[in-house]
């Protein structure tokens, strides 16, 4: 029997290596930044809270990096699910209207309930991303062939522009542009433990459900008829997966605002490592998405410290060429 090289490395090793990579990235993200801190401070920050440096780490950098882990994992996993469900290699919560929808809902929520808490913000984001996705898919299904990768992305771009305009309009009219911008364009700046306490559980649950449904997702990604033939209740699974996507994308927006391309790029990179079985794609996407987000955020903090470089812009600079590359490969870069 011939074993190609790529499959010779067992999955458990790939999982282990990805985990180690995430831990190392996390430690570096903790150490590097505008305020000088030592490795000793980083280690102490996990256990004690004396001294100023450790305070900075514990209250500012630590939650921020934990936030990066959750946001990166959530975006990568929701992107992977979207790509599998729609068999569309260009699917990404930022490109198909989910983040824009969450953004608009967030602006509306802030306008009408200025005292809204994290939970309220997050709920608004769920509703918004669901609405955004439904509009995009509604437009796509109105015409035969509307689900072709590029057409779906065009519909997503149009709907996103519209939804962003709504968010801005609401912001201007209610004079809350600054508050909205702080939420949606601020990346992970100001992520607090309180915020994480509300939002992280949703992401953990979302990723857990995604892992449980990963075999079902592989079947759907093959061919819907094959999935039905093997006894899958496809409607039920699709609804469940859709809810997971909404939870993950909405929670990511509630934490870090608009970030496109993470959900697009990470699953493609992961496929190159583990193949097209979602049992392997989902967990590695979560780990590498988290790692990627940590690194992007750290670079954003370091590039012109003590000033922040917007992480969304940084990711877009890497993400756009990646997007074009996939389009160039005929939109079928599934291997």
């Amino acid at each position, binding site marked *: 029997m*011939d*074993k190609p090289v790529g499959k010779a490395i067992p999955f458990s090793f790939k999982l282990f290596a990805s985990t180690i990579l995430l831990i190392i990235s996390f430690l570096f993200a903790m150490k590097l930044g505008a305020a000088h801190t030592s490795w000793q401070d980083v280690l102490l920050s996990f256990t004690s809270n004396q001294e100023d440096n450790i305070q900075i780490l514990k209250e500012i950098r630590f939650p921020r990096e934990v936030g990066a882990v959750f946001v990166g994992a959530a975006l990568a996993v929701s992107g992977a699910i979207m790509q599998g469900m729609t068999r569309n290699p260009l699917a990404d919560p930022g490109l198909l209207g989910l983040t824009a929808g969450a953004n608009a809902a967030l602006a509306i929520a802030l306008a009408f309930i200025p005292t809204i808490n994290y939970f309220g913000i997050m709920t608004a984001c769920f509703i918004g991303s669901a609405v955004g996705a439904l509009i995009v898919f509604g437009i796509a299904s109105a015409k035969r062939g509307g689900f072709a990768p590029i057409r779906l992305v065009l519909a997503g771009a149009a709907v996103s522009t519209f939804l962003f305009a709504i968010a801005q309009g609401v912001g201007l009219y209610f004079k809350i542009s600054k508050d909205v911008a702080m939420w949606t364009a601020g990346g992970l700046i100001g992520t607090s433990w309180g915020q994480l306490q509300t939002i992280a559980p949703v992401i953990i649950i979302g990723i857990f459900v995604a892992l*449980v449904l990963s075999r079902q997702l592989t079947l759907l990604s*093959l061919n819907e008829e*094959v999935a039905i*033939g*093997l006894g*899958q209740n496809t409607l039920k699974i699709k609804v469940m997966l859709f809810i997971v996507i909404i939870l993950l994308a909405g929670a990511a927006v509630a934490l870090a605002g608009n970030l496109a391309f993470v959900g697009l790029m990470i699953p493609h990179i992961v496929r190159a490592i583990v193949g097209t079985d979602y049992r392997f794609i989902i967990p590695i996407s979560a780990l590498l998405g988290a790692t990627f987000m940590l690194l992007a955020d750290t670079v954003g903090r370091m590039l012109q410290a003590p000033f922040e470089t917007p992480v969304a812009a940084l990711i877009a600079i890497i993400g756009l060429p990646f997007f074009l590359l996939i389009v160039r490969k005929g939109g079928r870069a599934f291997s």
Partner: protein
Amino acid sequence: MVRLYTDNLQVSYDDRLIVKGLSVQIPDKKVTAIIGANGCGKSTFLKAVTRLIPHQSGDVILDGGNIVKQRTKQLAQKMAILPQTQEAASGLTVGELVSYGRFPYQNAMGRLTPRDMDVINWALEVTNTTDFKYRQVDALSGGQRQRVWIAMALAQETDIIFLDEPTTYLDMAHQLEVLELLQRLNEEQQRTIVMVLHDLNQAARFADFIIAMKDGEIVRAGMCENVIRPDILREVFRIDAEIGTDPRTGKPLCITYDLLKGDE
């Protein structure tokens, strides 16, 4: 009584009626071929019987119960369906794909038991695909790929196997290979095989029972010799066929044919 039959089955796409009240019994432990011209509704019929698409009225009865009322996972333990899968590009390895055939027997976590592994290895073996176990399905030739998909259907361990044009896109030798595999499964393991076939002579040679369809209705369903006849073929395909006997198999053989002229 047969295990599987349809009663006045109607299927439509949008407003167009594709299958018009079909009632037919599928003989147990036999090979059944469905033939007919393009667009006659044979694939639609197959999909409706296997609940891949919903039907608007009538019934599909399996083991005394209507299939719409049976749990889809339990149905998947009784019947496997191989759709026309050529477009389903997948970077899965052969072993991974075939292991998904065990899906109907697995719980939520989907761990493969030693028994599952045995069945998977057996399915690979009978389809002669063991050597490809670690190769990507996409990297195989058409004939190899078709055998891999059949292996997945076999891993489902069902008494009934449906196939939608299993020989399309294959060259002559590979077509025969696939059909002989199905014949062996029928003879050695008494599996019921139901397939849509394009080639008349393949249907005549490999099927015990043939359903000839036209415009969503059955023209004739019966034993091979009663369906592969000039008068039936004239109606089903609008051809004037010369039917002889295959000197090797003794089955009917369409030696040559012409288009019907001037009757429309």
